[in-house]
């Protein structure tokens, strides 16, 4: 019995259930963390799932350092931390960043930070994770074993991307559905630069997006680490974030400002629309029952871009208000600008009138100050658990000011 993977919340917010998911790519297995609570079994078809039991070893330096620094108290969250640090070691990721999806209520994290640092100090001089017992010896055979699995694609009526929203909202309902997994479809997992745009397949995960060099040439992807958490980004898709249509969806807000187009198909014919035509009203989208998004296109315009997000907790939290701004200037005169805002309307909102006003104005404080006063007329925030409408109104204006400060910094 594999009891080490724990249930803490069943909504991807605590990380006690973190496991590794290995995918075979070019004879190499790429390991990433996922929150198993939001991952249906079908979505690991043909992949290598590693729980804490598959990592434990008396000489495992992650485990040894966690013991020596006192990085475990009640122990309930600990397997998740070990798994996340393992992925960080495999992928040479910043260890503290890799723990953005793991919650511990006992330690206050200091001992965990120290343990992580010790692990990474000890790994400095080696690439051989097997020798350091970061991963057990049997990992060496996994590429062959995965290669031997005959992958059978499943087809169904309900399309699941990562499922990281759907499995929070409708876990039991989905038990009886015929599911199809978009991340299994290699035809949908690509990021290809064209002449005028970057084409992103609908099965692309948030992590693949953030780590992609074509994307990071366009925008500062460091800011995108404020979105979800490492294990959620590893399985959640960009298209899924759009289809979920949350009024506060981070990628919706970002892609609105980037003037993204989406390609939709119903298997007989395709249509392309602008993302700002996609969100109709609260949770209502311009997508028919038999349709799915297959591609997102971001124009390769020369722009300055900034994304702002304020939430109660900086990481792994849903924003009170978020906003993105993409601007093209000549001699500091705004030639084109798109500002989007989440959490202030029933849909992720493109601030059209605000942008219209700013065209041909100088990129300066005066323009942005006036823009704020127009923006507040475009929004209809409501008071809820993420903040009062008065706060959200003020915060959006502050984030518009923050855009200016950040954009000026990019000059």
């Amino acid at each position: 019995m594999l009891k080490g993977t724990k249930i803490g919340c069943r909504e991807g917010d605590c990380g006690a259930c973190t496991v590794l998911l290995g995918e075979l790519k070019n004879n190499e297995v790429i390991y990433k963390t996922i929150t198993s609570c939001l991952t249906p079994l079908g979505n690991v078809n043909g992949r290598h799932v590693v729980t804490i039991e598959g990592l434990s070893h008396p000489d495992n330096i992650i485990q040894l350092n966690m013991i020596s620094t006192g990085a475990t108290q009640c122990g309930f969250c600990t397997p998740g931390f070990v798994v996340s640090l393992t992925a960080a070691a495999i992928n040479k990721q910043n260890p503290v960043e890799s723990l953005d999806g793991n919650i511990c209520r006992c330690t206050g994290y200091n001992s965990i930070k120290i343990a992580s640092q010790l692990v990474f100090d000890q790994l400095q001089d080696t690439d051989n994770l097997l020798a350091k017992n970061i991963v057990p010896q049997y990992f060496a055979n996994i590429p062959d074993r995965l290669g031997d699995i005959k992958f059978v694609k499943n087809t169904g009526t309900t399309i699941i991307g990562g499922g990281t929203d759907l499995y929070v909202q409708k876990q039991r309902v989905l038990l009886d559905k015929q599911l199809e997994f978009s991340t299994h479809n290699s035809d949908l997992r690509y990021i290809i630069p064209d002449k005028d745009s970057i084409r992103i397949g609908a099965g692309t995960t948030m992590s693949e997006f953030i780590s992609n060099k074509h994307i990071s040439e366009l925008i500062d992807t460091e800011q995108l680490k404020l979105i979800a958490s490492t294990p959620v980004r590893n399985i959640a898709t960009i298209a899924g974030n759009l289809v979920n249509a949350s009024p506060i969806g981070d990628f919706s807000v970002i892609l609105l400002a980037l003037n993204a187009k989406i390609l939709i198909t119903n298997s007989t014919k395709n249509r392309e629309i602008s993302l700002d035509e996609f969100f109709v009203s609260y949770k209502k989208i311009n997508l028919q029952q038999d349709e799915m998004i297959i591609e997102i296109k971001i124009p390769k315009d020369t722009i300055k871009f900034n994304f702002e997000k304020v939430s109660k907790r900086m990481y792994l939290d849903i924003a009170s208000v978020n906003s993105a701004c993409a601007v093209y200037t000549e001699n500091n005169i705004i030639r084109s600008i798109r500002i989007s805002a989440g959490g202030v309307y029933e849909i992720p909102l493109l601030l059209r009138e605000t942008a219209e006003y700013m065209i041909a104005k100088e990129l300066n404080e005066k323009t942005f100050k006036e823009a704020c006063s127009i923006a507040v007329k475009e929004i209809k925030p409501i008071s809820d658990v993420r903040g009062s409408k008065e706060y959200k109104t003020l915060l959006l204006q502050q984030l518009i000011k923050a855009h200016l400060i950040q954009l000026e910094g990019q000059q």
Partner: protein
Amino acid sequence: MKNIDSISHVSGKSVYVDDIPVLDNTLYALIVPATIAHGVLKKIEYTGDHSDFVRMITASDIPGENQIGSIIPDEELLSSQEIHFMGQAIAIIVAKSLNSAYMIRDEVHVEYDEYKAITDPRVAFNSGNIIGESRKFQCGDIVWADCDTIVSDRVDMGGQEHLYLETHGSYVIPTERGYKVISSTQSPSSVQKMIARVLGISMHLVEVDVNRLGGGFGGKEDQATPIACMAALAVNITDRPVKLILDRIDDLKMTGKRHPYSADYKIGMKSNKIIAYDVIFYQNAGASADLSPAVLERTLFHATNSYYIPNFKATAYSCRTNLPPNTAFRGFGGPQGMFVIEAAIDKLAEKSGIPAYVLQEANLMKNGDKFPYGQITDNLMLTDAWSKIKTIKNVYEEEIEQFNHNNKYFSKGMAIMPITFGISFTNTMMNQGSALVNIYQDGSIGLSTGAVEMGQGVNTRILQALISSFGVSADRVKMETTNTTRAINTSPSAASSTHDLNGWATLDACNQLIRRLEKLLIDEYQAGSVEFINNRVIFNDRSLSWDELIQFAFTKRVDLAAHGYYCTPDIYFDKEKEKGHPFAYYTTGVAIQMATVDIIRGTYKLDKIDIIHDSGRVMNSNLDRGQIEGALAQGLGWMLLEDLQYDDNGRLLSNALSTYKIPDINFMPDIKIEFIGANNPLGLMGSKSIGEPPLMYGIAGYFAVRNAMRNHKNIDMAYKTPLTPERILMGLFS
């Protein structure tokens, strides 16, 4: 010594309630919660035909008393008619599978008459909804005319969800001898007692066993009991094993939290000395007493925090509202008492223009000073800690000044927080512990105590005490589960006292055994002095291995089991006079926190904290650091981040981990800890208890952020916690 559980923890082999393999015929229970906060239950029925449905259990099925109130009998296990909070248990669904239980529960039909809910403690107070009597602590005579500066204000503190990573749960098995109850509880004897009461049987028929908890923090002191009672009730009715585990959503909805408080105060000083403080506390108790009266009492004990205030009056009311019954949470009312006095000093500082730390220092408690409730202080390290903090403060101040000079959009600030926390249950009766030490004939040892391991490392500390007594190595000892057949009439693992009470009891048992073994050596070998060290016993220039000694003792018919007992000496409290000596000793320390506020976005970052902590003689620095850092995280979370919200109808709005955020790794400041302290004769191995006190260092986080705002501009912001980005931004623009 490292936490002895850490090896199984890091490999995922540690067993919690939900990990125990279930028997084949096990049934699964779910609680049907009330969906209104106040009213009367008119009808409840399940008319479905799910093949996995076994039973729906309601109040009328209870064979014994339908009553689980521990201090005041005012709480039904299952509602017989009245509904007092949303999430209150009205029935139990028992099904053959957990998934079916959820589907069945969705189809239970309930009808109510709904009444208006009260969620605000002041509204409850004004309409006479008070639990028990009001409490009043006072000393001296307040003469406002003697003061040169007087301020008064209102303070509001939010609640806090425990968020133990392991939710509540219990697995109950019917046995030949009654009921075997596996429970995630801090209080096995409470579970035993209440199951006996609810089932109308005697306590000896109920065996409660606790392996470990995936966190407790007070949330499983009183509130694990109803969960276990419901599972036992389902066993009583079905005669099959029953498992009842709350999922996170149910746990958040159904269980109580740290008490929100509202308070009014007036404080006066004369040339930096506080000479008058009058405060009224309105505690939001929720729908029933639970532990609220005891929590209220500790608020009064800590209403002056670490300060000597000669003229003092504090009045406290436990106000009954339509929220889940609020309960114990690390600090147990102390943090609320301390926050108000710190807010009062902050306001005094603002009005007088004298920095808060000057006022804090001028009024700091010294050894020999008397608290308003009569206890004279002794062995406090406050002034020593303060002088160390002052040196650090100078470095902080310089950094802040320079930073603020160079930054337009960010502002730094700092705050100092001294703590003095009384160690003991304030209910004197509860200060007792017991242990059973069994030495097997091969020399190996089994140790049972009343202490519950929930991550705090209590088993490790008690093990340290035992091996230092017997001079054996730790691998010769097994820490047994906490079990009511081996440790009886236990006090809950709470009040930072668990390792003292049960550790001293263990040493009592060890001493009895050592005396028996010494007597054997004297009788058989005319031994002079006997020393137990390095797995050997040394006497008369010769030695035996521990194992040889034990085998010999067994053949010589020496009793190799001993029961140890301890009750804290010299503590008492007279509730009529509200005076006494309730605490064995005080744990003290001082912290300084720096924070940066983002002036544009209204967000903040906790930069760093330095803590000088009095841990007596440090018995385990690894565990002590863990307790300080973990408690600090909870204190900072309570002050700044954790935003517990109910609407006016008593519905929990922060009802999931997506809306209720606790500290994560990026939230926490850099932490530096220095231990000071001297041998504490009343603490285990000379140490001082550490479970709760450091939580209150987190109060520095609130004032550091507030001061960072103040360093940017004058603010007029209510003293309200948590100080979220919303409150910061609105405060900056007020």
